[in-house]
């Protein structure tokens, strides 16, 4: 009798350890998502800011300036639900504006141009990076959260089910990693 009770007690302790360990693991994954999301937000904001600066600098032609200003503004102001679409539109506009080989050179010749191109190059490169890291964290957390044990014991608590950030983040081909036109 006592022997059976001992066994049950041991099993309960082991289960407790496993549950606490899994909860900790999940907690760490949620923290990782938060950090990745913050990094992604920072990159997107940086990208929109530089785009807006370029649009108001007077270096680009009026049509390109207006379109770029409009999409950059929309990307910065977008609500959460429209954010992915707004940021994708900014990517498309940047590709359209910098599709012409001369644009990068023209901006670089303007005062402060090389810095602006440098910042934009780094932002359009780091956005896809940050997004991949974010979505990778989301996938890892979702894999753990789908576990039966996690669902039965509600180990995820009230944390919302993590969602990937889907957008078109293809950078303009004229902006290469070393900032020189290809």
């Amino acid at each position, binding site marked *: 009798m006592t022997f059976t009770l001992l066994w049950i007690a041991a099993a309960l302790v082991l289960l407790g*350890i496993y549950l*606490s*360990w899994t909860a*900790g*693991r999940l907690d*760490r*994954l949620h923290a*990782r998502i938060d*950090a*990745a999301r*913050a*990094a992604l937000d*920072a*990159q997107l904001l940086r990208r929109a800011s530089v785009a807006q600066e370029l649009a108001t600098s007077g270096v680009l032609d009026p049509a390109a300036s207006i379109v770029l200003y409009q999409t950059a503004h929309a990307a910065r102001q977008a609500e959460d639900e429209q954010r992915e679409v707004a940021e994708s539109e900014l990517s498309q506009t940047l590709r359209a504006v910098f599709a012409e080989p001369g644009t990068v050179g023209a901006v670089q010749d303007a005062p402060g141009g090389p810095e602006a191109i440098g910042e934009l190059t*780094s932002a359009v*490169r*780091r956005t*896809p*990076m*940050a997004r*991949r*890291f974010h*979505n*990778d*964290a989301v*996938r*890892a957390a979702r*894999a*753990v959260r789908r576990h039966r044990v996690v669902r039965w014991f509600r180990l995820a608590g009230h944390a919302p089910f993590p969602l990937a950030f889907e957008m078109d983040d293809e950078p303009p081909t004229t902006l*290469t*990693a*070393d900032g020189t036109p290809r």
Partner: protein
Amino acid sequence: MRIGIVCPYSWDVPGGVQFHIRDLAEHLIALGHELSVLAPADDDTPLPPYVVSAGRAVPVPYNGSVARLNFGFLSAARVRRWLHDGAFEVIHIHEPASPSLGLLACWAAQGPIVATFHTSNPRSRAMIAAYPILQPALEKIRARVAVSEYARRTLVEHLGGDAVVIPNGVDVGFFAGAAPEPRWQGTADAPTIGFIGRIDEPRKGLPVLMRALPRILAARPGARLLVAGRGDTEEALSGLPRQLHGQVEFLGMVSDEDKARLLRSVDVYAAPNTGGESFGIILVEAMSAGAPVLASDLDAFRQVLDQGAAGELFPVEDADALADACLRLLGDPDRLAALRETGSRHVRRFDWSVVGAEILSVYETVTDGASRVAADERTGLRARFGGARP
């Protein structure tokens, strides 16, 4: 930035991953970053000032060959001490998915962790068995880097998730600026073909090149094959008719300087590898030195050679195709000159100035607002029950 790098393989054994880490470390130190490399090494091996020894690696049979690995309490304690003393803003682990120091570090650390996956080995049974144990360690990695699109694809298939592609770096200027060595330079009648790699490692493909050689020499009797790398030269020559032995010259192990001069001198660089390559750094080095590259059509090579625009490709293990392609190249000086030209332009994206900036971007993306790396106190059972840690 305070950076910690974990090298999975013995520092005193030469290898691609070790060289990559050495060059990355020296590049980042030159940029003014504080950096420490944790690597397995014998305690009495002389190490550069930035390398910390994680203890001696033990040879064990793994995955069909002998791997030199670190495990056990001593190594784990050294990893913890290194993490504690370093107070790193980010740690960069190489090969975390193989049973190595990388995995151990991944297990013991928490915070901003970046990991680079070098190899693209097919999934092993041991890996599948260890998956549930591996996964909690691997999911601590905040940023995954693959060295090629091919390596990324294998990573996604085997472990899920995603990675950014950052190629291995090369000091392009070092190879481009090397002085050609007249002994290794060919003439119009007697061109030279270069090969660098382990002679006794069949996957490096020297046997394929040896099978192609009689046909090449039949059309160009003066041609010479220059082989740099260690291994049994008698065995390498065994398949070749005796009267042709004089056309093959073995240079043994060469220094980095001699390697660059060899690549600057040859008329064609041949890479007949048959598999097991996830990147192909030697091709980038050859192109940096302005050598026209003739390589087997492996996924990784195809990508490094810009889908064949920056070098010639031939079907893997096809000695006849290799001979034909080689003769075609040697008979067409314009094509050789064009390849030298495109190659030199193409390699600029592999220069450390570009690759190092990309890696720093990854570090900055994961450290943005994050706390420092710390030892993970949750891993030990002792810690869970409130046990004190020495």
